[in-house]
């Protein structure tokens, strides 16, 4: 729902540069999938968007305003779930709902939480369980349910489906697409994944983040009327061409990095 501008953003942990001059203009309602090798700074980029880190240089604008810190307008699904382990799964969600919708009654909050749990295919008994009593994939789904429940205009999702089996993953991909497509005012979604097919299925905008230091080395923006259909996708020669192209770029980057590190001092 909100446009995001990443303007020549660099970021270092201490004196170790992680991102070097990332620039990306994303229109409101885009579904951006970020691909890239492990350790290239994808999570770091999401943390910058989420306001959890500040750029060393450059700026990030949301709807024209610079990001000042974390907030409810940008829902985050962390790579490692981020549920509070001392609260029941349900309370984790209702607390978030209460933050976003303070006017709702306790019963309405609970109803909303239960609906979102059902959306991610979790039973109602999960509501009363502690996160420690759930499996890794269930915890992750719970965190996704929480992000959906607060219904933020911008969603930042860091490999949200990585821990799930293929069937659940496919269902949740549909769910995210549904949530995103149905709304009058589409959410702007940033979605980190290692899976090229997932990116092709979901994205309106695929970005590949290169390494050392990270910057966008490849970008493909789909036409506005992109219709995604899992079955038809792999029959589409254009999609196949794109798939090969993306994989080639990622592989080239890895080969280049290997060569660079091999040529260095021993």
């Amino acid at each position, binding site marked *: 729902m909100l446009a995001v501008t990443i303007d020549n953003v660099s970021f270092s942990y201490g004196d170790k540069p992680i991102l070097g001059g990332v620039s990306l203009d994303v229109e409101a309602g885009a579904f951006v999938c970020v691909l890239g090798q492990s350790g290239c700074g994808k999570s770091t980029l999401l943390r910058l968007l989420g306001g959890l880190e500040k750029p060393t240089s450059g700026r990030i604008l949301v709807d024209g305003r610079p990001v000042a810190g*974390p907030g409810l307008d940008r829902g985050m699904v962390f790579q490692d779930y981020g549920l509070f382990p001392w609260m029941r799964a349900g309370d984790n969600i209702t607390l978030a709902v209460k933050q976003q919708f303070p006017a709702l009654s306790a019963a309405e909050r609970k109803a909303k939480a239960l609906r979102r749990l059902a959306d991610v295919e979790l039973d109602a008994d999960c509501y009363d369980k502690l996160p420690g009593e759930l499996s890794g994939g269930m915890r992750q789904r719970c965190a996704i349910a929480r992000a959906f429940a607060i219904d933020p205009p911008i969603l930042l999702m860091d490999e949200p489906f990585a821990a799930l089996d293929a069937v659940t993953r496919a269902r949740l991909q549909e769910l995210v697409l549904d949530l995103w497509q149905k709304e009058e005012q589409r959410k702007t979604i940033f979605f980190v994944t290692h899976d090229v097919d997932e990116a092709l299925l979901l994205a309106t905008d695929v970005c590949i983040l290169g390494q050392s230091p990270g910057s966008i080395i490849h970008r493909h923006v789909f036409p506005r009327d992109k219709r995604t259909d899992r079955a038809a996708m792999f029959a589409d020669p254009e999609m196949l061409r794109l798939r090969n192209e993306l994989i080639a770029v990622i592989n080239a980057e890895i080969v280049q990095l290997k060569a660079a590190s091999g040529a260095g001092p021993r």
Partner: protein
Amino acid sequence: MTRTIARHAGVVAIGIALVAGYWLLTDVWRVLDPFLFAGPAKVYPAFVRSLDKLAEGFVSSLKLLVPAYALAVVLGVSLGVAIGLLVPLRRNLTPYITAASAVPVTLITPFAIHVFSTFYAASVCIIFLGAFWPILGATLAGVVTIDKRYLETAATLEIRGVEKMFRVVLPAAAPTIFSGCSIALKFAFILLTVSEMFGATSGMGYFVQYYSDFARFDMVIAGFVFMAAVLVGVMALFDLVKKRALAWTLNS
């Protein structure tokens, strides 16, 4: 019921072995000095005889312990959270907190007696101080070492103020806070004896102190046994509370 007994069978067996061993060393073989180390043959009747007095002492000791410890928990935890969350305050106060917690509370006794007009207030003050510093220290440590991810999640959900304190900071720091509280509880028991040394006319510590002055070591040991039993009971109660509060961290 049988399961509870089965679970504590080991504890009971060790207890019996300890008493039996002590009995052998004293009444049976007379290895230990019989004047100082009164055997069970003398301690048991002493214990039975003074049960009334010990019970009375228990009540008056609790009147010191409970308010002092409760105050230490409330102040220690709330100040610890406040100081732990406010970084500049923490940076400036840490050396003083370290210094203050290094002062043996027993050294403060004369000052406490001077400052407080009544024995009761002075005693509560001493027990409070003994319990306060470990709780404050543990709370600070607990707040400072909270997993950053919890605070980040709280920040993205805009959980702030009181809500953040009670639903994020305190639960996240609770394991450390509880271990501080448990150390503090044991300190409080030790200081009970110290604080009942002056001015008290009853109490578990007073009982031990009183008979020690008369070299009635059978009574002293009876008093020790009683105090130890009370401490074990109180700690069991404490563990029950802890178990409920920390259910999410327990391994079994």
